Every structure is written in structure tokens, then in C-alpha cells.
């Protein structure tokens, strides 16, 4: 596998997807939503900046997920459906290289879009820092809080796994099923704790066993969600976050490996 070829495929994906109106309109929508939080925050005296931060991070979460699922689906499933993949795979490119290039290109797109949304959020927070500065002796987190970048970075890690899942599903199913599978994967990934503890609330050992198996099979995005802690200035568990990141990266690599194995022998009819 040639890293140069991976880079070339990734660059083409990036160029194509940043020009596509779908992710652009999503980022625009996120910008509008973040700006609108200025007005929403007026409804809750004293909590305005918290609301802006909460709403901003939640919006970025949603938009990131949508880009990951819908653009990720288009990476392979739509290329097969539209048959644009034929010309690329007739070039001196292995299927695994193509797949990895697609993946890296979408991660680059996601990173750019998250960065654009982060700039929008910080601009709004900057406005609050000027309009309603914190008292000098305040124990609250600062308005323009650099720690907000941590939940953003962890969101990116979640999206790495979700995009790898979208790619994996698209190697053996059509665009619609890939979207459904990936959304289900994302939702299930946020209920890891519930799956783990399911055995405590049900009597059926089979149901408890299935839930436990799913808990081990699916990623646990709970450990990568520190929005509340950062917004409220709570303490963070560095070791737990590091472990969650390592597990997520391992999971993404495993998904990519599985996707490559399936895709290598797939007939592209």
C-alpha cells in the first residue's frame, strides 16, 4: 500500500466533499444555530454562556454525525451505485489503498468542518467575553475556554470510529442500508453503559447475555463524551479518557481491516 497513493485519493475526496453542498450547508446550519444560541441564552439569566457552550457542542456533535454518516456512505456505496468507482479501480490502485484514501479524505473533511464550527462557537463566546465579562474572582470556567477543544477532539475520535463503520457497512450493502446501520451503530455506541448494566434489571439470562455481548462488540462512546464536565468546569479523568481514545482508535483500525477484507473480494457489478 503506497502512502502517496492514499494521500492522492484522500486529497480528491477532500476536494470533492468540501465543494459538495451537503456538508457546506450543514456547517452553515451549525453556524446559524450557534449564533442563535445568543438569543436563546437570554431566556436563562446567569446561565447564558453555559447554554451557548452546551448548544454549540451539541450542534457540532449532530452536524459531525450527519456529515460522517451521509458523506461516509457516499464514499463507497454511492460510488459503486453510480459506477464512478470503475475508473479509479482500473488505475494502479489496490482496493485497500482506495478504501484507506477515502477514509483519510473524509476525516480531513470532518476535521475542516469541525474547525469551522469551532471558530463560529469561539466567535460567539468572544462576544460574550466582551459583553458580559466574568468577575475577576469568578470560579466559573472562562467564556473563551480552551478546554472546549477537548470535547471537540474527542468528538473527532468518535467520528473516526463512525466513519470507519460507515465504510465497513458500505463494502457489503447499498447506500440506504449503510445509513441505517451506521446510525444504529452510533446510537448503540452511546448506550454502552446501559448494555453493560442491563443484566441487573432483567431476569432473563439470555437477554442479559446478549446485552453483555453487544457491550463487548460495540464501541463505547460514553467515555469519549466530556461535554458536561468541560462546560461545568468539573474534573476530568485523564487515564479514562486516554483508555477510551486508545480503544476507539483500535476499534476504527479493526473496522477498516474488516472493510478491506470484505472489499478486496467484492464483485462490483
Amino acid at each position, binding site marked *: 500500500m503506497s502512502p502517496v*497513493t492514499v494521500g*492522492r*485519493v484522500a*486529497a*480528491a475526496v477532500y*476536494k*470533492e466533499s468540501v*465543494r*459538495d453542498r451537503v456538508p457546506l450547508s450543514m456547517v452553515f446550519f451549525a453556524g446559524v444555530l450557534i449564533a442563535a444560541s445568543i438569543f436563546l441564552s437570554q431566556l436563562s439569566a446567569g446561565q447564558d454562556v453555559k447554554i451557548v457552550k452546551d448548544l454549540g457542542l451539541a450542534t457540532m456533535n449532530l452536524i459531525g454525525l450527519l456529515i460522517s454518516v451521509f458523506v461516509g456512505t457516499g464514499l463507497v456505496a454511492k460510488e459503486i451505485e*453510480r*459506477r*464512478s468507482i*470503475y*475508473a*479509479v*479501480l*482500473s*488505475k*494502479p*490502485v*489496490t482496493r485497500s489503498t482506495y478504501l484507506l484514501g477515502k477514509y483519510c479524505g473524509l476525516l480531513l473533511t470532518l476535521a475542516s468542518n469541525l474547525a469551522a464550527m469551532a471558530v463560529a462557537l469561539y466567535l460567539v463566546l468572544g462576544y460574550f467575553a466582551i459583553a458580559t465579562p466574568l468577575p475577576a474572582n469568578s470560579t466559573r470556567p472562562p467564556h473563551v475556554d480552551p478546554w472546549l477543544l477537548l470535547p471537540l477532539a474527542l468528538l473527532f475520535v468518535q467520528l473516526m470510529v463512525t466513519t470507519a463503520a460507515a465504510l465497513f457497512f458500505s463494502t457489503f450493502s447499498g447506500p440506504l442500508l449503510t445509513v441505517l446501520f451506521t446510525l444504529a451503530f452510533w446510537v448503540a455506541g452511546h448506550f454502552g453503559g446501559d448494555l453493560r448494566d442491563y443484566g441487573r434489571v432483567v431476569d432473563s439470562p439470555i437477554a442479559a447475555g446478549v446485552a453483555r455481548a453487544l457491550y463487548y462488540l460495540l464501541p463505547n462512546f460514553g467515555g469519549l463524551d466530556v461535554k458536561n464536565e468541560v462546560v461545568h468546569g468539573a474534573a476530568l479523568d485523564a487515564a479514562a479518557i486516554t483508555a477510551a481514545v486508545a480503544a476507539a482508535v483500535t476499534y476504527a483500525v479493526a473496522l477498516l481491516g474488516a472493510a478491506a477484507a470484505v472489499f478486496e*473480494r467484492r*464483485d*462490483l*457489478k
Partner: protein
Amino acid sequence: MLAIETDALSKDYLVGFWRPRPYRALHDLTLAVEHGDIFGFLGPNGAGKSTAIKLLMQLVFPTSGQARILGQPLGDLAVKRRIGFLPENPSFYDYLSAEELLTYFAGLFGIPAAERAARVASVLDRVGLGAERRSRLRSYSKGMVQRVGIAQALINEPDVVFFDEPMSGLDPIGRREIRQLMLDLRARGTTVFFSSHILSDAEALCSQVAIVAQGRLVATGKVSELLSEDQHGWEVVVDGLPATALPQVGARARACTLVHDGRHLLEFAPGDPAELVRLMTEAGGRIVSLHAQRETLEAFFVRRVAAAAVRGAAEP
């Protein structure tokens, strides 16, 4: 060494959702394509032409049999560097321009950055794409996309190029330009393998053809050899035949038609053409043209495909 060779290449697809069963799209295809030929791969819609090309491109994998391109097994990256491919009804990336797409593909071939711009401009010129090369592909007509498809197949100056229905979507001028382009490629030593069901293109271009129907090879060989055995007479156009000579000449001909002012079209049974020339000259006529009446590729194709359909229907 042959440019392309296939040996009993077969492909089954699974059809049916609840109870999938194999459907044989291609049966034991054995072909040999010489270097520098324009090889026409002909057949009606659904005959298995695209399946065969997809097998050669490793987009689908054979159920049985094998194939080699330039003496190497399929999928070899070194061979892929030397081949070009135009898919049927090609589709590319909506938000890239033709220039950007070709620059991307040139990069995949490892063409040095310094050469890419010139190479891209050169192939786009060859397929007749003008200033619109900088517009995004989503704004292109079907014919323009087809031209981009042909250009991308030539970006690496391939030794062997596969065109799947290259004339699709092109107007008559475009078709003539692509025919000329294929002849130019052959003149440079490139092997051109193209699938089509437009037989006039094949007849005008190909040194060899293969005809497939219902997934089976029904005929292959040089066009001249396939059709020569079916020659069924001579056609002579002659000017100035005196009225007095007409009964004598007409008696020898199978048909005699007055075309216009003193020009006659005469059809003769197979025989020595020198004797016909002598007959016309002695009768006082001036020969304008003398053609062997042969079955056209179209008639040959229709006959073979119909026979294959009858055989297919008779099989259990």
C-alpha cells in the same frame, strides 16, 4: 506474447433475493488479441460484453477460467500502469472539473507533477474538450462526460486500452472523431479492445472481432475472413453502355438497373472479375466501380446471434 488472452473465462452471478441461484453471465470465453490490433467485441445488449471487460479489469472476479493482459495475470499493478479503461456510461465526480479529474488520475499513475498539466491538456485536446474542461463535471452533457471518460483512459499513454461502448452518447461528429482517435492509437502501436453493438463502427475500424450472444462466443476472427466465405456475387457500376449491348450484358447479369443517364448497376454471380471487366469493355461501357457483394458484418452478426438464440432456447 499476446496483448490480451482469456482461457475459458466464466462468470456466474447470484440472482434472486430469497433463494439466490447462479446465473451464468459468461460461458467459457476464450479470446486472443494480438498487439496493435483494434479488436471489436460485439454483441447485443445483455450478451456479456461488459461482464467480460469487468472481469479483465478485476471489477468482478471469475467463477472459473483465467486471463492475462500483456502476458501478466490480472490485477498486477505493473500491468495496470500500462492499460486504460473507459467504463460503459461513465460517471465521475460531480464537483471536480475535467482538468482536476485527469490531474488526479495522472497522479495515481505516478506521472511526475511537472508533466501532469501538459499531459492533461494534451489528452483533453485529443478528445476535443475545449474551455469547458475547467467547469465542474456535473454541468457536462452525456457526450462531454463520454469524452472525459475517453481522455482519462488515455492519460497514461496505455499499451492496451479497453473501451466499453465508446460511441455511446456521442453525436455523429463525435463518433467520427473517436473513430479517428482509435485509428491514431493503432498507428502508435496501442492495442484497442472495444465493445459495441454499433456494427458500422466495428466494420470500419476492426482488424478482428468477436461476437458474443447470451454469454457465449459465437464467432471470432478477422473481419475479412469471417465475411469472405459468404461472398455472393459482384456489383458493377458502368457508364455509357450502348443500348445495343444491353441485352447481351443483361443476359449475363442477375439484375440490371438504370441508375441515371446512361449509368447502370449490374449484379453478377460469383466468378472471375477479370472476365466481367472484359465483358464491359468489349460492350463499350466504362467501369465506374466493381465491388464484391459480401454479407455485411451486420447481416453476419444478426445471423449468428439469431442462431445462438435458437441454440440457447433448445438447451434445457
